[in-house]
């Protein structure tokens, strides 16, 4: 029996006695890109932290590839690549050293050629491969982190505000990358403010309000994939 990559049902997470996530349900299959939209403090990042097992849930079920972070934390984390909002690397190490190091921490070392191929496919310029990360722009950091995620080759990719602070061209490049990954069967869950970007890439868009998915839209074949007006008004309503 195959499990969905991510399955959340009636999730409740409390922080400081307050229910931040309250009855959130969401299922994600391989190759799907899901964008979770919502205002500040709506519970987006909290949901990510619950999936990663940083926060314990106080209700509902949550499994990654059929495994529950509450019991099999490491097995769950082994299936997830996570990009925080501000990708921070070791500034005193080069891009290659950063990736090598973090891959070793994750216990999935890759060959030099693999790393270079990943750098190539994320569009990190070759002259940056052996440059110290301290001199990287935000886009370059993002690319390095995506390369790392690709090399980890996990079924689930969690992204926290991936395009904030990227210029429009870089953001567009980034969305292309996500599509490539999804095409390989990676399930992507991204938390974002960027409505247009989400509409560009996502297969599904969920609007989180009051700790649960308040409304959900599915991409339509053809252009535009989403009804932008509906998205806008929905977003404006919850804010």
């Amino acid at each position, binding site marked *: 029996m195959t499990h969905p990559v991510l399955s959340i049902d009636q999730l409740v997470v409390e922080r400081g006695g307050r229910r931040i996530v309250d009855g959130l349900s969401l299922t994600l299959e391989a190759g799907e890109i899901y964008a979770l939209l919502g205002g500040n403090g709506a519970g987006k990042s909290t949901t990510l932290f619950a999936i990663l097992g940083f926060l314990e849930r106080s209700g509902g079920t949550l499994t990654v590839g059929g495994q529950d972070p509450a019991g099999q934390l490491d097995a769950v984390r082994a299936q997830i690549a*996570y990009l925080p909002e501000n990708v921070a*690397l070791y500034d005193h190490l080069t891009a290659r*050293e950063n990736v090598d190091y*973090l891959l*070793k*921490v*994750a216990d999935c070392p890759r060959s030099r050629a693999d790393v270079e191929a990943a750098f190539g496919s994320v569009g990190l310029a070759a002259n940056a491969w052996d440059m110290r990360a301290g001199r990287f722009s935000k886009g370059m950091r993002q690319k390095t982190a995506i390369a790392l995620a690709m090399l980890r080759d996990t079924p689930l990719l969690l992204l926290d505000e991936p395009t904030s602070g990227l210029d429009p061209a870089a953001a567009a490049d980034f969305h292309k990358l996500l599509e490539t990954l999804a095409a390989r069967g990676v399930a992507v869950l991204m938390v974002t403010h960027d409505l247009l970007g989400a509409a560009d890439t996502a297969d599904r868009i969920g609007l989180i309000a009051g700790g649960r998915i308040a409304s959900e839209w599915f991409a339509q074949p053809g252009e535009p994939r989403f009804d932008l007006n509906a998205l806008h008004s929905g977003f404006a309503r919850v804010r």
Partner: protein
Amino acid sequence: MTHILREMWLLGRSRSAIWALLLLAVCASASVALGLASVARDRAVIDRMLAGQVAEEAALAAFVEDAGSGAYYGFQPTWDPPSDLAFAALGSRDIAPAVLRVRALALEGQIYENESSNPELALPGRFDLAFVAVYVAPLVLIALLHDLWSGEREAGRYHALAALPRARRRLWTSRVAVRLAGVLVALLLPFGIGALMAGTAPLRALGFAGLITLVCLLWTAIVLVVARLGVRSAVNAASLAAVWFALTLVAPAGVNLAINAGVPVPDGAALARENREYVHAGWDRPRDRTMRDFLKVYPQHEAGSAIPPTFHWKWYFAFQHLGDLHVAEQSQAYRDGIARRAEMGRIAGWVLPPAGLAQAMSAMAGTDVTAQLDYQMRIRAYHQRLREFYYDYLFSEKPFGPQELARVPRFDPAIGG
């Protein structure tokens, strides 16, 4: 193992960490080298004394005419050889003499002599491995570990790292292990080399290494508790420096103040003066009383105890010894006072673990106050043997010449008497 190697590599890429460890290794090596030099100097002082003693005895042999003059002029060396661990914990060997020459006169006037040394060099304390391990190594551990988590958090990497599978074991544990191991290597490698050079007994060396490891483990635990609880690296560093400061500098100084105030030690100078008074009053005290008092202690010499109305060495040495007996209680109280202070210091060591471990190091190396008192007891035991050797000649009126001089009992550093 791969995790350890990986973290070693990462540590190697941090310039400040390498500098800190290098500084520690240099300090440890320098302290071992200086410790070995200091021990070698002590040994050389002892050797020179034993070599020089030959000439002294030859000179004495030229004019010794009876047991009395042999006892009066014949200084005999005693010494406290540094142990095979003394190089690592010099303790109070710099302020207590390693050698002392005594003769059969009243001992209380001789035993408190000091070695000639520059007090300004003793003032800041010894630069030995115990100091490096107890004072400097914790600072390096603090520098390496205070931002273990907060540093990653402040750099924004924390969640990305924590999201990796088995981060606790693979990442944090190996990171701590590598840093602690770096500190231990910086301390133990120079120690090991020093121990080999000093010919330290393997088990004792192991025990000392265990104490060093314990100090490092203790501080690692303290640092990790603060690092785990603290949010900001700067606050962690400040709190840890304050803890270090309180535990190693302020609290021991305060406790020492309290101990010295709470445990009085009788005035040594008054004791020495009292001894002199009693000894010199011996010239004017009725002679038969002196002899009677002396024979109470040494009844075996009753037979030969008759003295002429003029000067006789028997009588002279009798009142010398009575002078010691006169202040025996005060002298005991003086030693007890110091021993009590040392004892209180050890008790304080249980509350102040760094100070406790430092004391354990000098105790193991035989360089602490207790060891100094023990050396004094060995001198006392030897002095008794020396006196009694001469008493035999004095009271039996056996002839005493250069041949007998060679038979004078020698000090045995292990047992004294």
